[in-house]
């Protein structure tokens, strides 16, 4: 192999490495490359993230979840206003944190007047994680747990088996803290990972955990079935802040392929040129 040939191959390898490196570097914070309904649960140690403004949240990957009007028989059910919610989730020291953020230009925290409704948000899990319940508040044989936060400070842990069957637990195991700033609500739900009763979702049982979200804009008269809801998503437990493995693997394969193609091409071009030189002399 001549010096020139070696140099060309080295150049190709460097270019390939740069492409590979930059794609991995660019892709890491972007969660969109995951399967559409996957939301990573970051594992941390010693992190108190119960506050919506806790410092630690800035480095937790966020998923953008689309919302649309829930099918419902209540009047004006299609008239909802919130179209997306950002979701982050962390497991740390036996606590499970879910953080929701959404834009709502009106802050409605009082129902003092008969015509006033509060902003609210909810996270829904299967009560029994072995199967996925019907999305609309579960079913009679397949119930759901709902973590409900209301703008007036209400936090409820709910069991439901179909629309209209919402029943709050007498002593909720979920806490919720909320903050409103610059037209954005941030709510953090906290529950211990350990399940404390038969009707509570076991947050520790599987790698993936079905989850769905709902948001109500009180200022728009939204309550009950008049709400913005997501489809079923799933939490994937066991992903660190350094970047999800699925995505890293994907881009690594792509990078290697690029390097190989560049290398083989350069080598082929070099060889072909070498052959011409020999023939012409």
């Amino acid at each position, binding site marked *: 192999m001549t010096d020139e040939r070696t140099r060309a191959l080295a150049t190709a390898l460097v270019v390939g490495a740069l492409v590979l490196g930059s794609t991995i570097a660019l892709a890491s914070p972007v969660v969109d490359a995951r399967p559409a309904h996957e939301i990573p649960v970051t594992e941390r140690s010693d992190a108190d993230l119960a506050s919506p403004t806790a410092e630690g949240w800035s480095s937790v990957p966020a998923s953008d979840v689309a919302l649309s009007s829930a099918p*419902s*028989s*209540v*009047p*004006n059910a299609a008239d909802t206003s919130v179209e997306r919610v950002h979701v982050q989730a962390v497991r740390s020291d036996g606590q499970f944190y879910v953080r929701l953020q959404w834009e709502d230009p009106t802050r409605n925290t009082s*129902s*003092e*007047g*008969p*015509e006033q409704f509060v902003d609210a948000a909810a996270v829904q899990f299967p009560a029994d994680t072995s199967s996925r319940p019907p999305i609309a508040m579960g079913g009679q044989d397949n119930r759901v747990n709902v973590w409900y936060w209301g703008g007036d400070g209400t936090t409820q842990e709910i069991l439901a088996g179909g*629309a*209209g*069957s*919402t029943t709050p637990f007498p002593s909720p195991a979920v806490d919720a803290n909320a903050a409103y700033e610059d037209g954005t609500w941030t709510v953090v739900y906290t529950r211990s990972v350990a399940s404390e009763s038969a009707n509570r979702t076991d947050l520790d049982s599987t790698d993936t955990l079905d989850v769905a979200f709902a948001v109500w804009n009180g200022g728009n008269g939204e*309550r*009950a*079935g008049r709400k913005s809801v997501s489809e079923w998503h799933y939490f994937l437990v066991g992903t660190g802040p350094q970047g999800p493995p699925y995505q890293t693997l994907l881009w690594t394969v792509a990078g290697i392929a690029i390097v190989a193609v560049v290398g083989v091409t350069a080598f082929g071009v070099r060889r072909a040129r070498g052959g011409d030189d020999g023939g012409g002399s």
Partner: protein
Amino acid sequence: MSTNEETNVNVAEGIDHQVAMVMDLNKCIGCQTCTIACKSLWTESGGSEYMYWNNVETKPGEGYPRGWEDSGGGWTDDGSERQTGEIPSREDYGRSWEFNHSEIMYEGSDEPLRPREGAEWGPNWDEDQGAGEYPNSYYFYLPRICNHCTHPSCVEACPRQAIYKREEDGIILADQERCRGYRYCVEGCPYKKVYYNAVSKKSEKCIFCYPRVEGEGPDGETYAPACAEECPPQLRLVGFLDDEDGPIYKLVEEYEVALPLHPEFRTEPNVYYIPPYAPGQHTEDGESVDVDRIPRQYLRELFGDEVDQALNTIERERQRARQGADSELMELLQHKNPAKQYRLGVFDD
């Protein structure tokens, strides 16, 4: 809806018997004793202060809550679909006013006792205002409670079945355990007789004094709702619509002189009214003329076209009584025997 097996009366499906009330508007003096009887029993505290499960409003007038007749709810004309409604604002119900008691009592102020500010509307704000021009101005009082309807749009409106019509007597109750304060019943009731309690965050309403009706008091006796029993002119009859021996059945079903309010809402109320029978108009000189003082069209708007027939029947029977003939209808409308006026134990087993 089904016809009760034992009577010819339509009661709601699955309901054994239907409580009912007849109010004779010709007897109402607007004293609000019924209002206070109800309030002191049920709505004195804990977020219910602003509520008047029983109110008496002057008609024509805005009513309580203000403009309730135009607030939507009820059913479409064929009774098949609910109409959307609006939830009245706190202002429409009327806020409680703060008075300058402390200035006058303790600070020596000699200004008159009066609300400090914000006294711009309240229940009965337009009392006795009515309509028309002297000497033919007119008004009458309209006492209102929940109508415990046969086709209740409030019940249909609730996505949780928290508000329900109970089987034994058709009284409509808001289950305080099940209610989550969504207020679809508040907007769905065209009479605006369900109220939201901002303290308990649940909706509440007239319970037809069911503990009294059931004889749950200390003496174990059955009593009519407090609004009826406490009424000084005793203008209310209480019983069951399907009690064919009772005065309510006769007034509603036989003589057809007791009419539901706003039948066009299609909720089929079980509170009925004997329409007001006002004297005719006067000339400037004070002579009576044969012209309705209360425009008949206004009464039709309130009670439907059946009001014409009802008033004709009353007029006919009055003439009979004047001429010395017996008139069961006039007897019924004058009856003072409480045993007949309040017939509540008739279906007790």
